[in-house]
């Protein structure tokens, strides 16, 4: 909301300077967003009189002027304005002045051979309007040599404040002045209202048929108005705050709206037929509004209509048809109370904002409907003449007789600020609250503060006026001792896998939670589609972290980075909940080209497996117990992917090479592998024994190493053999590792050779040859059950 300093002073009697006013506004919650003095840029321009105007010897359209600038000697100026003539008063800029509208610095120059020492300015050159037909003409009484901006009343700083949505009262200058007065910056000037008695009955019937949407509709007619341009002072006020003057009567309503937060509407009586009533719109009705657009209305909306058509979207915007024009002679002034919730809904539905809507939806002062109409009558007659009818009052504005029980200690208890009782009473009184002291105070809320309805609100009023800067920083109570750890087990797992992934050379990304429906469909579809997405690309809540990561891989590839190792920790949004997940994608080369290895190696599914296992280990999962089971989702290569599970049910991760169709869907050339770790499936750490580790008991005797080479059918999974070998003698076998996989010469067709190293750990005594033989026999027998036979 914008207003000028002079406008403020119409409502506030104060000696405070601009800086104090600006600082105080911000300090009491009316945040100043900007202060601008339009006179600043006009400082170099003065009032001057053209003494003589002679034709330019070299140019038909130019004149050579002698200008009296008040400095003594007349100044020669070459001027192209058709209206420049001897005796005329205008605005002069001397060499050195910056002309804002033309973005140039004036200097002494020869124009077609004649020296020119300055410029007579047009409206546009001074950025005071769009006119550029000629130079500014000032009235004869303008003092030559005076600063133009000061003389023209433009030396009036414009203050722009951000009014929070709860402050209905500060949507007008008067309310702002009241707040400043409460803050000790002077006295609020009372509004002088001299009700004008009606000279005749109102010639038109006024009703409200929608007491819910429009509880009160007051109106009266003024006959015999002349709706020309409004007086200069009024135009200047409006222009200063960025409003375009339209006509005396329209400007009058805007002036009162900005001054008192009281929107009004003026109808051309001649365009109305029959009674004017507030009612719900009917299906199919529409209105051509004053902004030049046509709006389709529906029965949820309150409108003002006569017997024929809708003339006003109640409280939001008037209609073109019945708006006042220069030809208007009789008007009807509407001063109504519209229900804030209704206004808000209608405005949102129509996507229509207006100064009236912002005020009605915050709530206008219900006690100011009558006085508002009186003020409007007064001002309308002052600017346009005419004679007023009696007032018609249809309905009644709501009464907000709110009383609040308040203990003054609350200022300290909640606001953290000590304010003496007398001072609290003073602040509240200045803000318009009534105070009845007692053990508990009874506070009456003024009609313009529908936002205030409890003790906490009163604390805010008292403390904001007293000043938040007086609130003393108070340390929170602190538990004795060292701060306790606060992270939950889930948070710890997340931290561990994140840092471990970074240790393993993965770069953490954060990608959008929403992807396109097509991308989601490539991952089995999304359970959650946005109704109002920003774009098709951001429409479906991701069912997997991989689409976002793959899109990032593609973008990186587009920038020339083909080798990408990305991970993200975030949620998947499934029908039954949001699942914390780690996703990772490896693309391009595992090992870049290097002189030691010679050639590059591309990522493969085992790289994804390695990352998945390492991260699961970091999360505390007993990875030796994990099984790689087939059946990873369809986004992976069906033969080069797996699920990692603890037992058959609890799947902790999926990994593998991505399906060619997936790569294609993301426009990737590959190779790319991926893994997803389902963090919520990780079993909680059993923390029975506290921090104490098991007793340290390294084996006394050295372990024995034995190698076995087995032949198995080509389709047999290595894991099956390894599990069988491991299970052959749980006591003696400490570990089993696979060190060779071979097909080819010496291995029968359809078979493969798997070579394993078995570490045997003796207990108390060394193994005897016979014992070793027996263990080997058990290993071979167990392998045989898994379909393997010892290679000769």
């Amino acid at each position, binding site marked *: 909301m914008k207003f000028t300093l002079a406008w403020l002073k119409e409502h506030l009697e104060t000696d405070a300077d601009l800086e104090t006013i600006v600082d105080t506004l*911000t*300090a*009491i919650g009316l*945040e100043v967003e900007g202060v601008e003095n339009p006179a600043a840029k006009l400082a170099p321009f003065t009032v001057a009189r053209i003494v003589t105007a002679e034709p330019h010897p070299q140019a038909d359209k130019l004149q050579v002027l002698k200008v009296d600038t008040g400095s003594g000697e007349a100044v020669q100026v070459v001027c192209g304005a058709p209206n420049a003539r001897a005796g005329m008063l205008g605005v002069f800029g001397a060499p050195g002045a910056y002309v804002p509208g033309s973005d140039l610095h004036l200097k002494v120059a020869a124009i077609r051979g004649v020296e020119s020492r300055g410029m007579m300015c047009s409206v546009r050159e001074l950025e005071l309007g769009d006119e550029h037909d000629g130079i500014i003409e000032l009235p004869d009484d303008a003092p030559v040599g005076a600063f133009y901006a000061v003389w023209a009343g433009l030396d009036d700083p414009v203050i722009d404040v951000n009014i929070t*949505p709860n402050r209905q009262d500060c949507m007008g200058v008067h309310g702002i002045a009241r707040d400043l007065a409460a803050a000790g910056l002077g006295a609020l000037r009372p509004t002088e209202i001299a009700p004008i008695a009606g000279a005749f009955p109102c010639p038109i019937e006024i009703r409200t048929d929608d007491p819910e949407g429009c509880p009160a509709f007051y109106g009266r007619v003024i006959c015999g108005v002349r709706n020309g341009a409004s007086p200069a002072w009024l135009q200047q006020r409006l222009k200063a705050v960025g409003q375009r003057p339209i006509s005396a009567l329209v400007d009058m309503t805007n002036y009162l709206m900005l001054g008192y937060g009281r929107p009004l509407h003026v109808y051309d009586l001649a365009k109305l037929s029959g009674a004017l009533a507030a009612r719900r719109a009917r299906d199919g009705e529409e209105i051509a509004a004053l902004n030049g657009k046509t709006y389709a209305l529906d029965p949820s909306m309150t409108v003002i209509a006569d017997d024929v058509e809708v003339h006003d979207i109640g409280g939001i915007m008037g209609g073109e048809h019945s708006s006042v024009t220069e030809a208007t002679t009789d008007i009807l002034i509407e001063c109504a109370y519209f229900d*804030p*919730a209704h206004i*808000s809904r209608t405005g949102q539905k129509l996507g229509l904002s207006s100064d009236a809507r912002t005020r009605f939806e915050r709530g206008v002062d219900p006690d100011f409907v009558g006085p508002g109409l009186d003020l409007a009558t007064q001002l309308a007659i002052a600017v346009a003449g005419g004679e007023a009818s009696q007032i018609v009052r249809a309905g009644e504005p709501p009464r907000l007789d709110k009383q609040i029980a308040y203990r003054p200690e609350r200022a300290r208890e*909640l*606001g*953290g*600020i000590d304010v003496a009782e007398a001072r609290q009473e003073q602040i509240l009184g200045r803000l318009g609250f009534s105070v009845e002291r007692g053990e508990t105070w009874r506070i009456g809320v003024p009609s313009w503060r529908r936002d205030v309805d*409890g003790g*906490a609100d009163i604390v*805010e009023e008292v403390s*904001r006026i007293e000043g*938040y*800067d007086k*609130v003393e*920083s*108070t*340390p*929170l109570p*602190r538990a004795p001792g060292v*701060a306790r750890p*606060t*992270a939950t087990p889930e*948070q710890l797992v997340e931290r561990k896998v994140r*840092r471990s992934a*970074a*240790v393993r*050379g993965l*770069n*953490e990304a*954060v*990608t*959008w*939670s*929403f992807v396109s429906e097509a991308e989601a469909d490539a991952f089995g579809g999304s359970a*959650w*589609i*946005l*109704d*109002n*997405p*920003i774009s098709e690309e*951001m429409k479906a809540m991701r069912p997997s972290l991989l689409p*976002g*990561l793959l*899109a*990032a891989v593609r973008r*990186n590839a587009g*920038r020339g*980075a083909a080798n990408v*190792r*990305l991970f993200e920790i975030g*949620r998947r*949004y499934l029908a039954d909940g*949001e699942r914390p997940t780690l996703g990772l994608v490896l693309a391009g080369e595992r090992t870049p080209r290097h*002189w030691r290895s010679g050639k590059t190696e591309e990522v493969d599914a085992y790289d994804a497996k390695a990352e998945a296992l390492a991260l699961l280990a970091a999360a505390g999962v007993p990875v030796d117990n994990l099984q790689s089971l087939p059946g990873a989702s369809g986004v992976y290569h069906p033969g080069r992917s797996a699920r990692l599970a603890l037992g058959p049910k609890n799947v902790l991760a999926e990994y593998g090479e991505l399906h060619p169709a997936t790569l294609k869907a993301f426009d990737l050339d590959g190779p790319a592998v991926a893994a997803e770790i389902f963090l919520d499936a990780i079993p909680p750490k059993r923390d029975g024994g506290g921090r104490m580790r098991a007793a340290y008991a390294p084996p006394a005797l050295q372990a024995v190493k034995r190698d076995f080479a087995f032949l198995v059918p080509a389709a047999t999974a290595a894991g099956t053999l390894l599990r069988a070998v491991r299970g052959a003698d749980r006591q003696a076998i400490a570990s089993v590792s696979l060190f060779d996989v071979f097909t080819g010469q010496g291995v029968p067709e359809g078979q493969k050779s798997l070579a394993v190293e078995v570490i045997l750990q003796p207990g108390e005594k060394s193994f005897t040859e016979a014992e070793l033989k027996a263990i080997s026999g058990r290993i071979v027998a167990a392998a045989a059950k898994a379909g393997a036979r010892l290679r000769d």
Partner: protein
Amino acid sequence: MADLDQLSADLLSRIGAAADLQALEAERVAALGKQGAVTQLLKTLGGMTPEARQAEGPRIHALRERVSEAIAARKAALEAAALERRLATEGLDMTLPVAPAAAGTVHPVSQVLDELAEIFADLGFSVATGPEIEDDWHNFSALNFPPDHPARAMHDTFYLQPEAGAIERLLLRTHTSPVQVRTMQSQPPPLYIIAPGRTYRSDNDATHTPMFHQVEGLVIDRDIHLGHLKWTLETFLKAFFERDDIVLRLRPSYFPFTEPSAEVDVGYTRVNGRRVLGGSEGWMELLGSGMVHPRVIQACGLDPDIWQGFAFGVGIDRLAMLKYGMDDLRAFFDGDLRWLKHYGFAALDVPTLSGGVGA
């Protein structure tokens, strides 16, 4: 006697001249072998008179000793020379580069989250979380948003297509404040929590992204007032920005879920054209806060006559930008490797109170 001295000189000179281990071995055999000159001399000792033996014995033994030592010394010298020759041929180009290990990084948002958790743990706040797909009640109604509040409009809030048969449209939470509600409902006070996470608003321009990160702070206890809020924010921001000259300015403002409400500005100084927090050359709006509205406390099932406290909310992305100097919010969510490597953090840059909460 002269013979023995002559022999010694001869042998030592030949040993010293042996060109390689093979020649040295020949000299050893010639001197100390079965038929060697020194061995022969030793054999003569047996046939000597005791007097002669007493006189000759030590001399011959000394000769054998000298020759053995000379052979050992020559052997060591020859071996050392051979090793030196071999090593001289084994040189590698030590300027050849080794294979670089992939350097992983932690995203600034995660890093800042860890920093926040660390700081607030010291103040006694634990970290709470909640769903991002929320219902209207938790996101708006319980937080005292009136039914027609503009924030509920489609142009601010993302709504989800309702499931078949569902009565209510769900939405993407527009702030982390619903976690306040869920925490108050599920845990008995006193409550000291921060709630970080993803939040969503239908905003998309140079400085707004439809998804962003916010952290909410909530304290519910018996005697908490605005002064505690001020101290908490000052303490937090000083710790987070690692500066003691952080100055706050609380301005009265409005949020439906707090009363009184305060917008918090932080003072900044201009350094090389960049705004750096600290000092008070100018003010930057940083976060919203206030005392939890009694209606919110009531909606969560607590008695507002007993329990009161404060809440605040601040953008995590914004905190990261102000601390580490990123100027483009959109880049946070692009996954551009160049950006991740430039602004990301090393895996072991774990913020701790003893090591500092900045890296």
